């Protein structure tokens, strides 16, 4: 598929935080890379803090299901992470063949967001899963499912942060493109800086002959935003890369469980 915004995407970068692996972000990244015909780069990020902990003499972990406490050591941690990385690599290879996209994967140790930002180029789309901020991550969705249909990720609106800056316009353009391609509604989360006329103008630029709608919510109107998140769900949140740290969504952020696309 020739994506309307393909020329503004050089590469799709997805940072997979191990052990808080993200199926949704990965599947969405693959889908997008396929749409843009852009190469996909997966970063399997081993949490450096976990590695350090495992070397401490009193390191122990609690089992997620039973609460049993057991020793944690570097060897067992490495084995578990390697196994995860192997599975991910296999899955990516399969997807590469299936979708005819170029895929690469790198295992790095560090902080997920930091590494993603460091390795991203200016025209990359960066996927960082919200799971890094959750306690239970994707536990409910299980491990990777080869051949998983990413379209299930795209049955909710795509949200975009817009405040009138050039960076957020790019985010809006990407969100609009995703909406057009996957027939998703777009919810514009407007910051205080964005004025109504500008927003209306941006809306009018969006193709109108499709059966999707564009809703505008003010970030300050938390009640409406929370209600919309709960009622409509969220396929992805598109925002400029540097805004990931700039904006603290508070309660909204905690309930918006979706991958984030950093542009």
């Amino acid at each position: 598929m020739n994506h309307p915004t393909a020329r503004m995407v050089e590469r799709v970068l997805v940072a997979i935080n191990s052990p808080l692996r993200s199926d949704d972000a990965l599947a969405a990244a693959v889908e997008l890379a396929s749409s843009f015909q852009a190469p996909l780069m997966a970063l399997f990020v081993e949490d450096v803090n976990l590695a350090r902990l495992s070397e401490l003499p009193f390191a122990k972990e609690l089992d997620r299901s039973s609460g049993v406490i057991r020793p944690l050591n570097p060897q067992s941690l490495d084995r578990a992470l390697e196994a995860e990385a192997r599975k991910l690599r296999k899955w990516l290879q399969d997807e590469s063949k299936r979708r005819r996209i170029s895929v690469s994967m790198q295992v790095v140790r560090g902080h997920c967001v930091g590494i993603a930002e460091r390795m991203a180029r200016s025209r990359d789309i960066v996927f960082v899963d919200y799971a890094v901020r959750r306690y239970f991550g994707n536990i409910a969705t299980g491990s990777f499912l080869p051949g998983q249909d990413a379209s299930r990720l795209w049955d909710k609106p795509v949200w975009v942060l817009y405040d009138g800056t050039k960076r957020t316009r790019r985010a809006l353009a990407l969100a609009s493109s995703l909406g057009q391609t996957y027939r998703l509604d777009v919810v514009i989360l407007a910051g205080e800086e964005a004025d109504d006329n500008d927003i209306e103008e941006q809306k009018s630029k969006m193709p109108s002959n499709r059966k999707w709608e564009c809703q505008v919510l003010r970030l300050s109107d938390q009640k409406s935003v929370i209600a919309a998140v709960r009622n409509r769900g969220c396929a992805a949140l598109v925002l400029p890369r540097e805004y990931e740290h700039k904006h603290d969504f508070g309660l909204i952020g905690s309930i918006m469980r979706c991958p984030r696309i950093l542009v």
Partner: protein
Amino acid sequence: MVMSLGNPLKPEALYTPCDAGTLDFETTADLVGLDEVVGQSRALSALNYGIHVKGHGCNIFALGPAGIRKHEIVTRILQGEASSRPVPSDWCYVWNFKHPHKPSVIEMPPGRGVRFCQHMEQLIEDLGTAIPSAFETEEYQTRVADLERDLIARRDEMLQQVDEEATRRRVRFLHTPSGFAFAPLDAGGEVIDPDHFSKLSDKKKKQIEADVKELQERLQKVIRQFPIWQKETREKIKEIDREIAHYAVEHLIGGVRKNHHDLPEVCRYLEDVEKDIVEHVREFRQQTEPQAFFPLRSGTAEALRRYKVNVIVDHNGEASAAVIYQDLPTYSNLVGRIEYQAQMGTLLTDFSLIQAGDLHRANGGYLVLDADRVLRQPFAWEGLKRALRSRLIRIEPLEKAYGLMNTSSLEPEPIPLDVKVVLVGDTRLYYLLNHYDPDFADLFGVIADFSEEVDRDGGSTMPFARLVARIAQEEELRPFDRKAVARVIEFSSRLAEDASKLSVNVRQISDLLRESDYTAGAREASQISSGDVQAAIDARIYRHDRIRERAYEAIGRELVKIDVAGETVGQINGLSVLDLGDFSFGLPSRITTTTRLGDGKFLDIQRETRLGGKIHSKGVLIMSNFLASTYAREYPLSMSASIVFEQSYGIVDGDSASLAELCALLSALSHLPIRQSVAVTGSVNQRGEVQAIGGVNQKIEGFFDVCSQAGLDGSHAVIIPASNVSHLMLREDVVAAVSEGRFNVHSVDDVNGAIELLTGVPAGDRDDNGNLPTDSVNGMAEKTLIELAVRRREFARNSSAGGEEA
């Protein structure tokens, strides 16, 4: 010159014709076919009693010989009775929600079973769409999503609190591949480096470790709450499911309930259905196709299958109680069966595969069975008795009932049984069952004894003619004229082997009527005459006659030695009957005896060679006792005798030759020769009285035929018991020969009468002093016996003296 033999029977005594003049019709076309049963008043009365009497065990055994249409009579009477009885209930098997392996049964008014089944089928169809639709509503989705979200939020909140506590203590809450961990932080906010940690003071280290341990314990408590919360959430979701399901199915089930509100059992069942649907609603929420490997046991269709209704007894459209006849009464056909479906090598079943048996179908009515067929089928008799005894129809696979298989199967709820069973069988079977099966008398308390014959008198000939008319009409035969009917009546008497009786063996009479029709058809006659009937009788005999012909030929060629002329001491012509099933004929046998000095023992060669039956042996013993009591009352019977049926290579049974054997023995003792032109039949008792025997007609005709081969000269005769005279229905040619004086039949009351006819010498009676005339048969026989006794005494004395000298 032919010697005269006493007073033979007159020709009129040999055959009792039917006077066609007494029959008040021209042909059977003038008659109304007989509708009632001829001569079975005893059996009909018993059937009537058995049908109406109430009580456990008042089932009926209809017994009698084959060919008298017991089945037809029983069925006709039962159908007449059943027509006035109400239509029995329908019976349905349904799923048992408490014990799925024990399907429940529901009794319904006749015709309602199928309607109920149709209503449930419609309900199942409606449920298939109504339930998934109910769960696709936004309201439901939102309520469930809220609960799930609340659960996640609750867990996250608790973890958040632990996380915050950890942060306060400068500890990082981390995820591991399989859980969580706590790591102390350094001044830069990163997890502390192991080298750095090692350089910390012991106090600091202990503090950190204590903090981590405390956090771990706190987190452990939190994690252990999660399953409880999860369970609570699941229960809440289930409650919503139940609520939604209830709304979805309530009105659908209400529709069915409305149609059957008058049946409390159905209403209770529908309540159970509703509860079950609500309880298992998740199974119906998505319309899934059966899986390829287990098409019977997967998918929504399978889940809904348990609400089906299996109508095993349907009386829809019937007007009265049923009369069921089963000609293959296997165990399964009687008590029903549970069928199985093979799926990938596994046998599966459920209540919908329960099949009714005849007991189900006849319940509330009548069941007619052939006794011998029931007994021949493995376990059928036991199954029938069990059902009658318990008054319950319990469908139980044989392999389970007899412990041959221990796999789990269904145990359908038994159905109350209210049926009258009529077993139809022969007399022998009835007495065998009565003797050997202790349950039999308890369960079959009414005996309907069908007779094969009726009295031949003025009152029975016209009904018999109407029976002929009925058979002719039923089988679309030509009408029989009155002489033909008279001949059929005579044939019937001959079948009964009694001139004063008529056989009601309808099968044999029907055979004759059909063949008579065939004969009349061959000559293109519009009516059947007596000649046609006689031709049919002759043709039938001819078809069966080959063995008789061969036997007579063997006698004619002297391969089998039978003398029909001259006189011989100790040799006599006895008469026997060879029964070939549908045909029997008489045959003379030469019986010889020898006597000698002995100790009173009789050597029955037939018995010694195991060619004699028990009754024959009994006859020989009676005869020896007669001799001893008649001639040797005051001295020992010092004679040994041997008796044999010459050229007899098969089993000889019956005592009808005992008169002949006794006469041969008297001839041997008296040294008086016996006329070989005379044959004898009859049995004797210890007093020398002659008793009736069977097959008298065939025996006379047999000897007549053999003598005819040699040429009848008036000397040929047969001696029969006087008590058999009334049984005589001899062939026309035999009667003609007697009329012309070429053949005779004599009847005797005792052995004296017979021996006089055979030897031409008076038998002799004792005078007042107890002496017999010396020139009589008895006198000469006694003399021989006394001589033998004297010789034996001398022999014994000489032997004793010789022994002492030695």
